[in-house]
Each structure stands twice: as structure tokens, then as C-alpha cells.
């Protein structure tokens, strides 16, 4: 009885899902950024925690082929912090069914760290850093259109 019921509900769930329109899947997930305290002087590092869906990869920030779209983080210019350097995750070289030779990709859980310096006119108090993360993902059989994730990091400027 239990197994019949399980089969029924699993099938019902599957049929319901089938009736939904096809949607671009969420392949790369950005963890909610934590508030960053910005000291009056010195450098501030902001780390974005990212997680790629298993079985998928994105091109690294330095793709090995010209035609591939790189992982790219950009910060909005009007911010209390000025980016000094963006440190992308270490890429791995991986061969796929559709590549003749290994290509430079990132996958799994990784972080992108940005080193900032405080803008000279930045006032103390709460603020936000905003930016965009663009990536293009594939799995072994198919690729997905380039996607942009909006990034918003809460700050507390001392």
C-alpha cells in the first residue's frame, strides 16, 4: 500500500512538473552576502560564495578559447569602495565531449574575492556595494545562454 502510494505521489509530482513551462535553470547560486564592516583605513576584502550545480561548469575568467564567454564580476562605479583587484577562483582544465582539448572552467563551490580601498569621500554609516556577475555555463551536452546575477553587499562604514 505504502509503495503504491509513493508511486502515485511521485508520478503526480512528475506530471505536475511536466505541465510547467520550460524555464532556464538556476545553475550558479550566489549565497546571500553577509554585511561587511569597512575600517576607516586599510583594505577591505569582499568574498562572494558561489555554488555551481553538480555536473555543470562555467568558463573561467580566462577562457582557453576565444569564442568562450568569461566569468566576469563588475562593480558599480558609484560606491563607497573602489575595487583594487578581483581574485577569481583557480580554474581547472577539463575535457568535455564537445571539446577537442581541455578548456579552462570553474565548477563546484568557489569564491570570488575583491580587494577594495575606501573611497576618499565615503561617509561613515550603512551603505551597499552593487555589481553584476556574468557567466556562461554548460554541461557535457549543452550550453546555456550567458546569465547575469545582480550582486548586492551590505556595508557598514566605520
Amino acid at each position, binding site marked *: 500500500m505504502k*509503495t*503504491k502510494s*509513493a*508511486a502515485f505521489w*511521485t*508520478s503526480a*509530482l*512528475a506530471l505536475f*512538473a*511536466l505541465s*510547467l*513551462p*520550460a*524555464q*532556464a*535553470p538556476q*545553475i550558479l547560486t550566489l549565497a546571500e552576502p553577509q554585511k561587511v564592516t569597512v575600517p576607516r583605513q586599510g583594505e577591505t576584502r569582499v568574498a562572494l560564495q558561489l555554488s555551481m*550545480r553538480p*555536473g555543470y561548469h562555467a568558463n573561467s575568467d580566462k577562457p582557453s578559447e576565444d*569564442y*568562450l*564567454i568569461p566569468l566576469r564580476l563588475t562593480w558599480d562605479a558609484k560606491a563607497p569602495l573602489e575595487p583594487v583587484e578581483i581574485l577569481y577562483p583557480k580554474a581547472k582544465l577539463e575535457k*568535455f*565531449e*564537445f*571539446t577537442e582539448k581541455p*578548456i579552462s572552467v570553474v565548477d563546484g563551490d568557489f569564491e570570488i574575492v575583491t580587494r577594495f580601498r575606501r573611497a576618499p569621500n565615503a561617509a561613515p554609516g550603512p551603505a551597499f556595494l552593487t555589481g553584476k556577475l556574468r557567466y*556562461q555555463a*554548460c*554541461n557535457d*551536452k*549543452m*550550453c*546555456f*545562454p*550567458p546569465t547575469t546575477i545582480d550582486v548586492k553587499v551590505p556595508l557598514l562604514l566605520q
Partner: protein
Amino acid sequence: MHTFFRLSGAAILAACLLLPGCASVASRGEPAPGSSRDASARKAAPDFELKDMNGKTIRLSDYRGQVVLLNFWATWCGPCKIEIPWFVEFQRTFKDRGFTVIGVSVDEDGWEAVRPFLASRQVNYPVVISTVEVEQKYGGVDALPMSFLIDREGRIANTHVGLVTKKTYEDEIRRLLD
């Protein structure tokens, strides 16, 4: 045993839905690769009108009476690049039997990106640049490559999302041409 298979089938279907590519295929009600939908179950391929690289209008309905392989692709799509030489070969082999490939690029940069690519690959079939409207007509192009094999009556006989084998395409084309 029956229950086991029923459960397994349901579990596979549910698991499949959690996989993006698989979900796309499943939601499009696909026959197994290499086979085609029964003629009675085929739906009309939505018509469109787009310009090719030389400004010539490519209208799908103008190809009625031919078998058409409608391929959505992009220059940044690795699996698409594997298929394109196959399509060039199919165009050469089957053109005289009433077959054509139509490539629909979804590149954001349009001809700027596509023109050099076509020249480098000596693509011998019509290629157009996609629009959101055309993609919507085909259920949304959420993964590439995405191809539709259209029979001589203008109906969709097969849909493929993702890389399939050259033989799969070849078998399906031959079946529709015969």
C-alpha cells in the same frame, strides 16, 4: 516486480525533471532519439521571417515540401560547434532530395559575431539571427544546441536539446526524406 518498475519509472522521471537539459527535453514530449513522432501527433512548426547575412528574407513556410533541420545555436556554444560540420555535410548530401538546414543564431552580438564564424566554417546553408519572438514561438530557447526536424508538411517530427549523435540526425533525416 511490477511495482518496482512503476516506482523506478516514476523515480527516473522525477529525477529527470531535476536535471535541466533532461527537463527541457521531457517537457517537450520527445520521442526517443532516432525515432520520430507519429505523423498524426506532429504539430505545425511555427512560421517565421528573418533576414540572412545578405539581407535576404528567410521564411520557414517557403520551405514547405522540404525536410528542414532548424538549428538554434550560438558561436559561444561548444556542442553547437561539433554539430555544424555534420549539418554542412547533410546539406551537401541531402539537398537534392529536398532537404535543408536553417541555422538560427542566438548570439547577442548578431552578425558581428556570426559572420566571421560562418566564413571560417564554410557554412553552406541559410543562417539567420534569432529574435525573442521566434524563440518564444519554439517554446523558449533555454539550452543549446536546440534542433527541430520538420517534415515536408511543415510539422515538427523531432526535437533535440543538447548534443546528440550524428547518426541520430542522419537516421531521422533519411526517414523523413523516404
